[in-house]
């Protein structure tokens, strides 16, 4: 289990924690459904915080608990495959682990499916030029592309009977636009088939028993600031509930206060020379590394405090430990899934 930064450290951090410009916590009065009970979970986060790691671990955790899970790569960067060590994903889902299916978003394929299944528009022959036109139109008319993407996920939940659909969503700078698209389109488009489509999508996205957003951050300055801003924007601009914040890469706490005094004494010239003799080597770097670890954790503790103050207290914070491992891929995904499971109380 991740080592929770505790009260002692909170005291260390308290004076540096509150900037004057921090937004007030947001308040979402809707009940909080447990994460794994939701059917549609969007996972977002600032670049470099481990968004894809958490999304892949969440899906693996849910499937290991007997759920039939679909994970969708919305960014189409092709990164997700490495987390399960499977071949690159396609629009058509494929089973990558028992009970866990994966797909990659593709706007053209989504449009084709959308026209055929939902609007019952017969698509004969080449759709290429039309899809390309829509791609441009998606560029010109915000919301159209997003509707195709979010619509596909909603549709998978409604029609395919997944226990859970996990979306490795765009980074936090982009996610609000995507989640707000159904409303935006509802506002721009008064009639037409898409209007009736956005109505049921909105209903699903607004229901916290079904849909939730999981934000991933690390206890560092910019990720925390961005997460607080994201929480406020999600509340104001979308109908989706923030279901939790994952604090990734939390460093272990080395010492309590008294042990730290011992450490400082140990690092003094006399004791250090004695230690060098006793172990027959240079213990300086070993103590230096511990000092670095302590300072790193302390700097991070101030950001954690800021995060706690800036997020609605009703939103669960889930702590994942920093992984001191040389492994990549499925092994890491498993480890993170294990830690996530412990944090969720399984």
């Amino acid at each position, binding site marked *: 289990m991740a080592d929770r930064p505790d009260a002692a450290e909170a005291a260390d951090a308290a004076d540096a924690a509150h900037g004057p410009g921090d937004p007030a916590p947001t308040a979402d009065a809707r009940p909080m459904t447990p994460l794994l009970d939701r059917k549609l979970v969007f996972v977002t986060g600032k670049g470099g915080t481990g968004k894809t790691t958490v999304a892949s671990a969440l899906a693996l955790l849910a499937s290991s608990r007997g759920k039939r899970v679909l994970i969708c790569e919305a960014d189409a960067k092709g990164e997700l495959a490495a987390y399960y060590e499977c071949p690159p994903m396609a629009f058509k889902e494929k089973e990558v682990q028992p009970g866990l299916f994966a797909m990659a978003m593709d706007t053209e394929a989504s449009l084709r499916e959308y026209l055929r299944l939902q609007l019952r528009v017969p698509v004969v022959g080449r759709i290429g030029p039309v899809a390309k*036109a829509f791609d*441009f139109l998606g560029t010109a008319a915000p919301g159209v592309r997003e509707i195709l993407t979010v619509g596909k996920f909603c549709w998978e939940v409604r029609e395919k009977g997944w226990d859970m659909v996990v979306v490795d969503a765009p980074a936090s700078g982009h996610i609000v636009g995507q989640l707000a698209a159904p409303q935006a389109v509802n506002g721009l488009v008064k009639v*037409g088939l898409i209007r009736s489509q956005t109505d049921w999508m909105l209903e699903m996205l607004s229901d916290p028993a079904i849909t939730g957003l999981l934000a991933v951050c690390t206890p560092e300055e910019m990720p925390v600031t961005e997460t607080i801003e994201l929480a406020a924007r999600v509340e104001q601009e979308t109908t989706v509930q923030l279901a939790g914040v994952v604090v990734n890469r939390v460093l272990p706490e080395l010492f309590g206060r008294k042990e730290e005094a011992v450490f400082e004494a140990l690092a003094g010239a006399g004791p250090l020379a004695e230690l060098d003799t006793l172990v027959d080597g240079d*213990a300086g*770097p070993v103590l230096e590394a511990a000092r670095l670890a302590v300072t790193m954790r302390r700097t991070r503790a101030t950001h954690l405090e800021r995060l706690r103050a800036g997020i609605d207290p009703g939103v669960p914070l889930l702590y994942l430990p920093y992984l001191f491992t040389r492994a990549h891929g499925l092994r890491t995904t498993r480890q993170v899934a294990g830690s996530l499971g412990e944090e969720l109380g399984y």
Partner: protein
Amino acid sequence: MAPRTPKGKADAPVPAPTMDSLLATKEIVVACGPGGVGKTTTAAASALMAAVNHGSKVLVLTVDPAKRLANALGLDGIGNTEHKVPASAFRAAGLKPRGELWAAMLDTKESWDSLIRHHAPDEQTRDEILANPLYQSISGRFIQSHDYIAMERLYEIHLSAEYDLIVVDTPPTRNALDFLDAPERMADFFSSRLLRWLIVPYRSKLVNVATKPFYQISDRILGTEFMSDISEFFILFQTMYDGFVERSKAVGRLLADRRTTFVVVSTLEATPLREAEFFAEQLTARRLHLGAIVLNKVLPDYLQGRAGAKVAEAMKDRAEDLAVELAPVVGAGDPALADPAQIARVLTEVADSYLNFQVVALREMEERANLAVAPEVLATVPFFDTDIYDLSGLLRLGEQIWD
């Protein structure tokens, strides 16, 4: 190219390039790379170093700086306008710059508006476009417009010939390459067939064979009203196409100019590093100048040695015995600290922590050794244990990459 020989020799006129020499010879430096690796601070530190050491007038154009860094640069609430970093900030850092450091933040909406004002043929068209809901949606929220506008703004500033050096931080993109393609994509869009379809008078659309399927489908999906809103917007915009296409091409040429160089920023973690490598390869493939790779947040060298690991293992295995021996010296100042059990715990924790971090440090070292690209300059910045939020912090970082 002349063979590289050590500095200071009479027959060595071409020393190996450094960030110092790179920044002294280029006019535009584009800092790019994956998110969360310290692009903004690296860009700001490079600009600061050039202002301090080269006596140049330098501008750093940042996208989304951390609040405290924005404050330090005097950017708080300044927005789009270029702003000279105040002398007081330099004094506070104990610095006397030979040159000047200017800073500006990129405000996408404001930049779009000024672009429209620049290109609009008359006041009425300008006002109609600025008030159009579709335009507001595109300029304010539409993410890909950031990519283009960042490059456009760079072009505009370069054209003003106000600065010796412009260091630009790139926006976080879905894909690191988006902003490279943005000018071309913009030019493509404004000369595309789709655009011609959109601005055909509405009545004739349904009889035109080429556009009919598109309109049948889009009317059905989006409704006729929305489609005519779109048309109206592009008809308004029509007067500015030529200007936009020409401008986009000029922006593309500037990025390929020999006065421009790219600095790819990354950490040594696997995922961002793969992205950075891919990006560096793409730069080369597009014949753009890959000037440097800056590796941030690298763990210190002392974590790597086998000797250190041996000491740590000894401290862990013999913690209790060592604690008994050390207790008198550790408790020399304060007898309360002489508890052997507590000393043993500290020794074990310290040793474990070293061994843990060594795993990560060795992985990083291997990543660096196997880097798939060879830039002119490869700079490594050690992990700083505190955040960088003022000029002294930027200077500390800058000195690490300088030579």
